């Protein structure tokens, strides 16, 4: 199974939309897409929003990728905001007890507020 990755430039930074399975086989693709965003980003990037509504499956390698991205965002002074976690993504966040570590939003409008 593949993951489909769409990147969109927005005023405060970037939106990354993931669709499909983020697992040991595909998390490298997600990591590469994130790396590309950081290369393209201007110094003033305020936020990276990741839409997870269409993610059918995520494993610990997906979580690891998001932790790395969060750490990179912090170095750049940008916010990482996770949006619309699908039920399988919520499951893995609950099990990893990481829900309080990330900024998580129910809708894209909510995530964009205040940026």
């Amino acid at each position, binding site marked *: *199974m593949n993951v489909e990755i769409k990147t969109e430039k927005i005023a405060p930074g970037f939106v990354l939309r993931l669709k499909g*399975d983020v*697992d*040991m*086989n595909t998390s490298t693709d997600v990591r590469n897409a994130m790396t590309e965003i950081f290369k393209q980003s201007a110094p003033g990037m305020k936020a990276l929003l990741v839409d997870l509504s269409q993610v059918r*499956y995520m*494993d*610990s*390698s997906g*979580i*690891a*990728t998001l*932790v*790395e991205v969060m750490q990179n965002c912090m170095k750049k002074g940008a916010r990482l905001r996770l949006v619309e976690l699908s*039920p*399988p993504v919520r*499951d*893995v966040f609950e*099990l*990893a*007890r*990481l829900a309080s*570590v990330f900024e998580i939003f129910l809708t894209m409008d909510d995530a964009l507020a205040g940026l």
Partner: protein
Amino acid sequence: MNETVTLAVPSHPKYLYVIRSALYPVVCGAGFTKKDARRIVLAVDEACSNIIKYSYEGDYSQKIGLSISVETGKIVVALNDTGKKPDVSKISPRKLDEIRPGGLGTHFMNEVFDSVTYDTSRDTGTVLTLVKSK
């Protein structure tokens, strides 16, 4: 009535979805909730990832065997490999307050399943047995 589904897949990450796709309907059919089924699938998937990473040390040309047994009131998943045996005394989940990538798979297995047993008594490889009661 006890029923068993068996499956063997190459030890390549691209086949993990085959295991997930086979496991989910069997677990749901055994009467587990969808949420429990998703968590069971996740934990088994993590176990398979660990087999690829640690038992086979990234060799994608090997084989992972899976047996799913639906028994009265519980499900038993057995994973077997022919790779490097783990030092069972050193397998432990990492502390969750360490916010860092990696090391969550063992935690997921222990959190989701009632029992996690490694059998390294065969000449080669390991049988990992995961049991979950309803």
